[in-house]
């Protein structure tokens, strides 16, 4: 097994507040509000009315004609409200359900551990009905319009547990005990419904034990390969995984599905088995609470629709903190704690909000400061780095140090693009690959001049699209036109 990696990127050192290998169950909230769009797929109309009685696991929204997957009630109770709320900058309909007496979870019909006896169509139906098919960036392809391609068109399936973010849900917890076997079963199920797909499993190379065990369990698999990968940020991105593992070029700006590749993470594969083998609808998530502002860094099993307020109650330390979803580099701020958890949550990060000024900040020895350069003592020690939201320096003109080009995972030169952005936003930017940027924000992080490169690039991209630049323009020169005909979903090429 050869270790795979990519050029650029940055291996984040251990930040304080990594989730420990401990999992608890969140107590039931008195009410849940369930967003009508979760994960991949368009928004659905609820099929229940205010006053309806619903059971746990009951489908409350479903539309076979839209690219979507059904949504379930995560508790038993009574629908008390259906209203629009602002959820991650979108107006979304939410169904609020008051928790009543639990009458057990509805199981999906036909699910069985002997799933290999089921026809593909039935498995796909189970995946669809359970809502699992909406997981990850492009959903899991089934014959029920759950992704932009069908299952037979999938050429490569990438499953990854790279753990390249600053905080990662522990693989040891996810794959503990029976879960490891469930995970393998999950892979088999996916192999069955995607007959043409080669399966690639990318794993953090530091998790040697799990890697060895998986290797043993999969010796008989055909069309299956395991890659240990270096957990450099942002290895977990589709755009980086595809070239690293498959050596294929990525159609930046489009999705992996456009070239017949599906990328899933470990939790999604586990859910696949739970849906097909055990008939469980997708109403729960394992979320890890990370970062120094939590009293205890643990994993927590939580029902979809639980409000953050309920989930985080008494778990945060005093003092101002910033709560972030999923990623320290790109995650959204969770300012409104009344909003619910949905299927896409995997980490909730809380770090201290620090506008405090430090005496001679630049001259600190820095035992707990993370830095791309090696100018802090922390480079030579293994102390945990303490994250906070201070800028740690003032914005200065770019000194052309080249750090940003060195770390950029897609091999563009952020400072060069930034220079051209200042000269005016026009098609020239396409030439330097602005649309290749995957918004990982690593360049902003490492810049000693604190130039907000990531934001500048993002703003420029939005402007470019507004003035009518087609993203595919920057792909054209890099791809063979022949390959282009095979592009699914890419329409406007010329």
């Amino acid at each position, binding site marked *: 097994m050869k270790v795979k990696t990519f050029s650029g990127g940055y291996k984040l050192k251990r*930040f304080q507040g990594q989730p420990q290998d401990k999992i608890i169950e969140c107590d039931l909230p008195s009410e849940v509000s369930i967003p009508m769009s979760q994960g991949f797929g368009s928004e659905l109309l609820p099929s229940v009315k205010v006053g309806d009685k619903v059971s746990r696991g009951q489908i409350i929204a479903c539309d076979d004609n839209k690219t979507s997957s059904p949504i379930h009630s995560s508790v038993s109770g009574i629908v008390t409200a259906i209203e629009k709320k602002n959820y991650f900058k979108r107006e979304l309909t939410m169904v609020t359900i008051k928790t009543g007496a639990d009458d057990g979870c509805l199981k999906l019909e036909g699910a069985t551990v002997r799933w290999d006896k089921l026809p593909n169509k039935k498995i796909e139906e189970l995946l669809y009905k359970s809502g699992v098919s909406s997981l990850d960036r492009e959903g899991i392809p089934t014959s029920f319009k759950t992704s932009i391609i069908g299952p037979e068109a999938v050429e490569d399936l990438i499953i990854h547990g790279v753990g390249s973010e*600053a905080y990662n849900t522990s693989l040891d917890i996810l794959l503990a005990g029976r879960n490891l076997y469930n995970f393998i079963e999950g892979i088999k199920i996916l192999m069955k419904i995607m007959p043409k797909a080669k399966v690639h499993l990318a794993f953090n190379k530091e998790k040697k034990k799990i890697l060895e065990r998986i290797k043993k369990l999969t010796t008989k698999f055909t069309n299956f390969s395991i890659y240990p990968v270096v957990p450099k940020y942002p290895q977990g991105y589709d755009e980086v995984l595809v070239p690293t593992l498959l050596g294929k070029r990525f159609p930046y700006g489009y999705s992996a599905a456009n070239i017949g590749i599906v990328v899933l993470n470990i939790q999604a594969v586990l859910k696949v088995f739970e849906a097909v083998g055990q008939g469980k609808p997708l109403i729960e998530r394992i979320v890890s609470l990370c970062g120094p502002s939590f009293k205890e860094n643990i994993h927590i099993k939580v029902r979809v629709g639980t409000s953050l307020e309920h989930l985080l109650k008494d778990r945060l330390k005093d003092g101002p903190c*910033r709560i972030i979803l999923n990623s*320290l*580099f*790109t995650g959204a701020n969770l300012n409104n704690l009344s909003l619910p958890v949905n299927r896409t949550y995997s980490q909730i990060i809380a*770090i201290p909000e*620090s*506008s*405090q*000024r*430090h*005496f*001679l*900040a*630049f*001259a*600190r020895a820095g035992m707990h*400061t*993370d*830095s791309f*350069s*090696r*100018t*802090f003592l922390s480079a030579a020690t293994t102390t945990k780095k303490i*994250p906070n*939201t*201070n*800028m*740690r*320096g*003032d914005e*200065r*003109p770019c*000194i*052309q*140090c*080249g750090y940003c*080009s*060195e770390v950029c995972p897609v091999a563009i*030169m952020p400072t*060069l693009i930034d220079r051209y952005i200042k000269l005016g936003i026009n*098609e020239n930017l*396409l*030439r*330097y*690959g602005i649309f290749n940027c995957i918004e990982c*924000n*690593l360049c*902003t*992080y*490492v810049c*000693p001049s604190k130039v*907000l490169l*990531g*934001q500048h690039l993002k703003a420029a991209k939005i402007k470019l699209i507004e003035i009518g630049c087609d993203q595919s*323009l*920057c792909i*054209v*020169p890099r791809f063979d036109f022949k390959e282009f005909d095979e592009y699914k979903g890419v329409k406007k090429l010329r």
Partner: protein
Amino acid sequence: MKFLRKILDETGKFVKKTPALKRLYPVFEATDEFFFGTDKTTILPHVMDGMDIKRYMSFVIIALVPATIAGVYFYGLRVLAVIAVSYAFGGLVEVTFSVCRRKPLYEGFLVTGLIFPLILPPGIPLWMVAIGVVFGTLFGKEVFGGTGRNIFNPALVGRVFISLAFPEFFTTMWQKPFWGGLGGLIKFAPDAVTSATPLVNFKSAHFLTGYSSLLFGSAPGSIGETFRIGILLGGIFLIIVKIVDWRIPLSFLASVFILSFFGNIFYPNEFAPPLFQLLSGGLLFGAFFMATDPVTAPLTFSGRWIYGSLLGILTVLFRGLTGFVEGVMFAILLMNAVAPFIDNLIIDIRFKKISSSA
């Protein structure tokens, strides 16, 4: 600390209120930021690297400390006066410009102000230091729009200017360094005994100075350029902490070595042997501290390889074939001017033009 905070707060209010002083606010701001860092918070990403420009510059200065102390040891306490004059006058230009342009005051000068005295001959009159640093900062940096925009290394611009404007001084200022005991640490300046630098010695008499005296600095040369062990250590330190890109010094020194190796075989009268070339003059200092100045070096990595190699070739040619025995300075200045073109070339190759038909 609290006391200092109070003083700064009061001064800040005072400066802001007083109309006559209002324009000096950037100076106050820079001082304030220097001592207390920032209170701004991040947007995205939510965390930031601990490194900032202040730390970046401080590390270059730390790496220059051995060479500076050695300079004082070899050439007496007067060196400190030279450094002080350089900082004072250069700082003045910097402040004037930031006030006139109403722009914040940046840290770049902290390094220039120290590098400049270190590349001067030890016997330099103080007034000439002042002229040099003012010229260098003005024409090397400010006319281009300040830190980050300059094409030439300001310290080098100043140095070359005074050596061209007052050439007659430059033959007589190479004093013999103190050697042994406490050296210059307890003396103000060496006696007026001057001697030729190793490079001049080679040029005029084909005399090769011993390697150990080159390494330890007992042979005459510029203030900070002769203690080569210290320079090597400082340079390697900067490479380890990732402030200096290793590509430039490596390609620079390697190409000097290779070219002078062959040059010495075929034309031993013009080209000194490789090791002597490496250890003489300002080569090591230039390779580690001046050629690597990120603002004036190319941005692309392949460009940096080209830049370094061309620097080496130019240096050897200047030294061997022209009267300017100290070829490093001219080579770096010349390549500073070429660096943007190298970058453009590399970028043109790497990012193909998008044809209008697409």
